[in-house]
């Protein structure tokens, strides 16, 4: 009899030791509070296919997410899985060694991702990928189809047509372009929403190869055109903040909004009746390639010090799959980077189509690795340009000089 008790006791003890290893609980951190319901669905799908693994989704406020995550990782209490930012924002977390490097052996699906997408989640120093990129964002022009139709307008093919169309809207009492630039980062987005095609692919290639800098005429002429276009922004737009500009567009008071593809969901939520269209702002002539600016938003990463790394990698593999990418695109209305995804939403399909001729969203993609960051420079120089406190040439010079401090190709 006592031996039975001992045996039962031993069995219970063995079970209690084994239990934590069997039920694998993973935590998954994100800054997308608004997508919680959809993520929980994705997780349910994963859990159904992988019994024994449970994933808990936790969200944090977006602007402070990086600080919260970095602090938790530094303190050893980080999550098993997490959404991380791209480019410079990734490096601040990946360089100290908090993230598990991903290879095509551990995550085979990565082999089919585009090099641009993987570059967003790669640390420049060691060339390793640390996260599965989840979405691309496109900087383009969003327009109100109804206003365009009523005024008998169509998507402009040349810069002159674009200006003429804006003048026509203004004459009929409609604000042609809703953007306001009191919010600093809006200055960077409007630059790439409206004048990417004027800069052109060659200019970007020359910048990347170090053959030219931002004093290049192709860049300063584009800034001059942007300044010229700003006469069609709202009155006092330099004092207009981002949220107000969004409302001008979603309320139908303005015909166009230069913004990222992420605005589409916002506008639909603010005004479900809005008929939206998108186009890439034109170049000088109809023959010039119409370009949007493209960048990648962030990625899914695993904690290098996580207790259940194997289970975490299983989940990462699920997140990298076409199946997940499709669900992501269908439910979250975002451009998934997963290979083989098709877009049911016509607008998303159009954005994906525009993405095929693009330049990188340059200052985010390549110039956020030192201080002063290229983004800070272009934001303040374009803001000055709009306020009439600098010229396109002086702005190009200031951006180049600012970057010279840390960007070696500009140092002579």
């Amino acid at each position, binding site marked *: 009899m006592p031996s039975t008790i001992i045996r039962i006791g031993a069995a219970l003890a063995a079970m209690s030791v084994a239990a934590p290893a069997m039920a694998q609980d993973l935590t998954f951190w994100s800054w997308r509070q608004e997508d919680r319901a959809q993520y929980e669905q994705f997780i349910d799908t994963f859990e159904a296919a992988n019994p024994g693994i449970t994933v808990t989704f936790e969200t944090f406020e977006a*602007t*402070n997410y*990086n*600080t919260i995550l*970095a*602090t938790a*990782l*530094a303190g050893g209490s980080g999550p098993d899985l997490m959404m991380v930012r791209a480019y*410079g*924002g990734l*490096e*601040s*977390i990946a*360089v*100290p*060694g908090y993230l598990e490097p991903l290879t095509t052996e551990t995550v085979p699906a990565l082999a089919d991702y585009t090099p641009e997408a993987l570059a967003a989640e790669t640390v420049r120093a060691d060339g390793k990928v640390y996260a599965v990129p989840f979405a691309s964002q496109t900087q383009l022009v969003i327009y109100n189809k109804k206003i365009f139709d009523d005024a008998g307008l169509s998507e402009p093919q040349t810069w002159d047509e674009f200006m003429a169309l804006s003048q026509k809207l203004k004459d009929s009492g409609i604000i042609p372009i809703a953007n*306001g*630039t*009191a*919010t*600093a*980062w809006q200055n*960077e987005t409007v630059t790439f929403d409206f004048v990417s095609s004027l800069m052109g692919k060659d200019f970007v290639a020359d910048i990347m190869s170090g053959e030219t800098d931002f004093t290049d005429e192709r860049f300063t002429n584009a800034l001059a055109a942007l300044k010229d276009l700003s006469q069609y922004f*709202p*009155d*006092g*737009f*330099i*004092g*207009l*903040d981002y949220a*107000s500009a969004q409302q*001008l567009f979603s309320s139908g008071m303005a015909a166009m909004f230069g913004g990222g593809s992420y605005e589409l969901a916002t506008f639909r939520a603010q005004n479900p009746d809005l008929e939206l269209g998108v186009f890439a702002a034109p170049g000088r002539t109809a023959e010039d390639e119409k370009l949007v600016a493209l960048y990648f938003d962030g990625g899914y990463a695993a904690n290098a010090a996580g207790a259940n790394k194997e289970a975490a990698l299983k989940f990462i593999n699920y997140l990298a799959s076409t199946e997940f990418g499709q669900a992501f695109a269908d439910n979250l209305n975002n451009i998934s980077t997963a290979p083989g995804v098709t877009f049911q939403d016509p607008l998303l399909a159009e954005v994906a189509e525009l993405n095929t001729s693009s330049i990188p969203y340059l200052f985010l993609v390549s110039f*956020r*690795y*030192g*201080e*002063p*960051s290229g*983004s*800070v420079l272009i*934001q*303040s*120089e374009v*803001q*000055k340009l709009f*306020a009439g*406190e600098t010229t396109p040439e002086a702005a190009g010079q200031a951006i180049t000089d*600012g970057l010279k*401090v840390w960007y070696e190709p500009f140092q002579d």
Partner: protein
Amino acid sequence: MPQLRLTGRGLWITALIVPPLAFVALFVVYPIISAFAYAFFDWNGLLRGEFVGLDNFHTVLFVEPYASWTRNAFSHNIIVFFALMVLQNGLGFFLAYALWRELPGARFHRIAVFLPVVLSTIIVGYLFKLFLHPLFGVVNISLRGMGLGELAQPWLGQSSTALWALIAANAWHMVGFPTLVFLAGMQRIPTEMLDAVRMETRSEWVKITKIVWPLVAPSATVVFVLLFVGAFNWFELPYVMAGLDGSPFGSTDVLGLYFYRTAFGNVSSGQQDFGLGSALAVLIFLFIAVIAGLITVRLRAREIQL
């Protein structure tokens, strides 16, 4: 021989003092000391690197682009301090005088003047952003309504007006505080003294400069020092109204925003740097502590004990 035994009373005092003391030590003293220590290390994101001595201090003060950012932010703090000294404390003094003299409607105005102080800075910031909205803001609409349309401005988008718009919002928000402190000071002035003045002169101006102002010196010390500390720690209002970057192009940048951006990064900047941020925090702290100390000592010296 002094009693070292813990009597009932001693026990009480200990029990009451230790928890707050421990709280202050843990949440005030320890962070200050650790920020001080952080400033002497190199940081890679949040990973502490080598001991670098005074390098971080040298960088924020003398190496570009940090040096010009520091100068720019600091100069704005100085403007804010002097502007608020006039608009907030100066106006506060005269408002207090008017309330103290019991002009008609004093009871109503006492509440009206103090009411904004209880509002949160965030609310005031958003409110003024709406007031100053270039298209629908009450300021521009009123100007246009009065036929002064050419005076309507994008207030928060111009380097010439943005900082002043923030200063005006702050003055509107906080003017009730110095008013209340000065009013309390004035109410302590003995009536005999005021009666004596009335025998000598009927001039309000003489009364203010020769009697009231010297006698509210203790109140002035308090509001001056608090304004100094507040002006150099200014963060919430510029954050709400102008954003972390001190938009437009750094013309509303102040030390608080600059410190936050440097230590914690923001969406547009490069990598966050705890070392430089901590060095800035230490410099701001030392500057405020030393100057506030000096101001206090000097102002105390001119106070008259009644």
